[in-house]
């Protein structure tokens, strides 16, 4: 445990880490809500204060960690609400996993915030972008420092909402609207898994708190369940992670999500948001390894996604889609690593991949410019033909090529077959409802002359 004086200090610092970006979010939006136009300088100043303050505090927490002062630890900042035995404790956890992800996240947010100042200069949604970036930073800080799955869920949802609204950032075109909705639908559908896991834990064990097991380096949830409950909780968590991290069959939303501004694509779908699924599974690794079946399922999902992403990424015709499938491939590998129990490797993979992919996506709009530079330096054209003899041999098979061009048919399967059929059926039911209720209403009007007469009188009065 931490020394007592440090416990008090840390307990006061931890809640401020997510609170500062939330404050920045409010300070950006509040003047605009009341019609006061603020300058870009004001918005950037508020964002700088929020992110730097939050990063500084996170740095202090990391220093405590590096000094070896008894972390991992869990702090309870208070109780939000309670009924009987059901209480929502506002708790935060400090350990290597959370702090590594948290420090890295805030660093990336600071970098992207600095990059976007010029990239989005005089853009119509400049302030909106930064407000949503702050909401995202708050969500990430909450996920990193969550002391329970309930707290993690709050951050998880904030990340999802800010992600959706940033995909729809360029609101003049219909494409971003559809793609944002698709991403949100995938998020919410898979969030059901996380909610069910939390509720199961609460009902069966009274809480969903992270604790430090003996000898464990990270906080986690010691395995307490048995039988079918283990499978339900484990598979629910994997389902939640699949949606957030675009695993097969939910990978179709990720390339579409690149419709947002490049800086947000970089930080959400290259760096941080897409890695939240693996982070959740690392945090709940005891549940993943509670049954060999769950771990095997995770490895299979991860490797299938890797194969899918690697193949489909090779036939994409735009750089952002190619990078999106690159992310899908790497995140699939990370999932497989977690399933195999290589947790430290998975954490390093997350940080390495996130940094590299962010750089790639941020440079993507300048790709042609960079290419011209390269060609000028080399003095000749650089060939961009796909070499089917080395590494892409599978793509020379027509069936495989068509399959990859159609993105594995997953989009058609989910959108047209599953959701489309469901919606068509529901609309059919709706039409039936309108028919029979119309008949019923006309029948009632025929039987109740009073209503009919009153209606006619009202109609005459209305017309006159």
């Amino acid at each position, binding site marked *: 445990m931490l020394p007592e004086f440090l416990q008090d200090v840390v307990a006061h610092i931890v809640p401020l880490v997510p609170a500062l970006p939330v404050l920045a979010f409010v300070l950006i*939006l509040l003047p*605009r*809500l*009341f*019609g006061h136009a603020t300058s870009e300088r004001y918005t950037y100043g508020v964002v700088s204060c929020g992110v730097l303050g939050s990063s500084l505090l996170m740095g202090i927490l990391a220093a405590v960690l590096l000094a070896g002062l008894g972390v991992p630890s869990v702090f309870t900042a208070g*109780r*939000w*609400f*309670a*009924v*009987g035995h*059901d*209480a*929502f404790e506002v708790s935060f956890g400090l350990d290597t996993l959370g702090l590594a992800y948290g420090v890295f996240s805030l660093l990336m947010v600071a970098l992207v915030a600095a990059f976007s100042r010029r990239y989005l200069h005089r853009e119509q949604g400049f302030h909106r972008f930064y407000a949503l970036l702050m909401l995202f930073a708050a969500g990430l800080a909450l996920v990193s420092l969550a002391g329970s799955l309930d707290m993690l*869920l*709050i951050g998880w*949802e904030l990340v999802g*909402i800010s992600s*959706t609204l940033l995909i*729809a950032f360029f*609101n*003049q*075109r*219909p494409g*971003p*609207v559809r793609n*944002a*909705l698709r991403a*949100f*639908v995938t998020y*919410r*559908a898979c969030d*059901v898994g996380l*909610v*069910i896991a939390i*509720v*199961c834990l*609460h*009902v069966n064990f009274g809480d969903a708190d992270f604790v430090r097991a003996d000898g464990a380096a990270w906080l986690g949830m010691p395995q307490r369940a048995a039988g079918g409950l283990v499978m339900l909780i484990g598979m629910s968590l994997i389902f939640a992670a699949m949606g957030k991290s675009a695993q097969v069959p939910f990978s179709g939303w990720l390339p579409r999500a690149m419709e947002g501004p490049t800086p947000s694509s970089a930080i959400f779908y290259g760096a941080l948001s897409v890695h939240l699924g693996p982070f959740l599974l690392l945090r709940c690794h005891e549940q993943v390894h509670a049954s060999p079946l769950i771990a095997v399922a995770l490895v299979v999902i991860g490797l299938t996604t890797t194969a899918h992403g690697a193949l489909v990424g090779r036939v994409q015709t735009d750089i952002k889609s190619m990078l999106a499938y690159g992310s899908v491939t790497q995140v699939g590998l990370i999932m497989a690593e977690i399933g195999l129990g290589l947790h430290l490797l998975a954490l390093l993979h997350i940080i390495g991949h996130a940094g590299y992919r962010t750089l790639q996506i941020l440079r993507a709009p300048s790709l042609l410019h960079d290419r011209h530079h390269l060609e000028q330096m080399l003095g000749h054209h650089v060939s961009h033909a796909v070499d089917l003899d080395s590494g892409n041999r599978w793509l020379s098979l027509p069936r495989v090529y068509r399959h990859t061009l159609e993105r594995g048919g997953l989009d058609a399967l989910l959108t047209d077959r599953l959701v489309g059929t*469901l*919606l068509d059926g*529901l*609309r059919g039911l*709706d039409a039936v*409802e*309108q028919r029979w*209720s119309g008949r*019923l*209403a*006309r029948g*009632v*009007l025929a039987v*109740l002359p009073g*209503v*009919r007469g*009153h*209606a006619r009188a*009202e*109609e005459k009065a*209305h017309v006159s």
Partner: protein
Amino acid sequence: MYPDLMLTVGVTCAMVGALLSVLAPDRVMARRAATGALALATLAVGAGLLLHLPERSTLALSPELPWLSSRVIAFAALGSGVVALALSPVLRMSRYDFAVLCVLVATAAGVPFAAAPWLVCVLPLVGFAAATTSLAASRHGREAAALLLVMPGMLGVLAGAALALGTASGLASGVWLLALVAAPPLHAWYLRLAQALPLNLFAGIVILQASVLESAVAVVPQAAQAPLSWMLAFAALGNSLLALAQREARRAAACIVASQLAVAGFAEFSSGEAAVVGGTFVLLTVVTASTGFVLLLGALEARLGAPLGLVRPHGCYASWPRLANAFLVLGLISAGLPLTLGYVASDLVLRGAFAGAAVPTTLVVVSGALNAMTMMKMYLYLFQGAAGRAQPSDLRPRELAVTFGLMVSAFAFAFSLLPG
């Protein structure tokens, strides 16, 4: 003594508001008179609530203190009535419509204090009858009025009679309650009402439904509560699915609200204490946030001059960004955005109900996710997309003040009026 005084002040002020709006020389004066009278009623009831309960910690909503939840709901109903009146566009509502809204709110405030269970079933008929007067002008309106009178209206009278006579009361009250929350296939009246009524009056109907649901535990016999709870969970899921398939914004909004009311009903009939308290919070979410986004949908329609579809993006963000943001915030509160009233409500319901009924609770979880999807779809399709000619008149100061107050109160409920 206190409940009687509260009831008298609240209902009398609302009825005076109705009378004043009918007698007013024009629609603007009618709206002002009705809003003023209802605001007075809300202030009186709120002050009484605070004076009677100086300790905030005693506001623990639980089965041991059912009278307290009724008061809170009655207070919220009156407050939401003020919001509905203040956000009413005068061009779309007549003086009689303002009076009808007052009557609906008065009925909503009075129902939790009904002296006998059968009265809970019969009293809403007063509000429904008033609403039919606003529906008579068009053919679709007349059809909606007929369905309103037959489905929740007459079924309520039958349920009241069954309760008074003590015969088949479980069946009658169960069917009535399913019709009241517009559970499929008894939801036809609700969707038609949403299409035909001015949305401010529809918000009044929602407030009345929430208020009746709060008292529904007393109406349904103990033996019928468990099966009814299952049916309400299925109703919540059914309405959420229907919401997702709608092509008209009004019908989608009605389906979302109906789904939330079914969740509240499911929670009220659950065995867990947390779920019962959560049910009350779902109702509070409905009367603040859900009616709020319905009213803002009305404000948007008043600006565009026609009911809105969800087939193509309308691009309203460019013209009315503040209206768009307010719609989004209230919609997300209603859908259970973390750190809001909706989140508290759903969290309590799920924790409390899962132990006793895992399958229906799972249906409720799915229903919540589907409602959030529909909410986001509505926001994206109504406000995003290519903008037409830029139009003035974003939220006016009056509308802004009311909307901001609504948001603050939804957050205040989430952070202060909480058990424990």
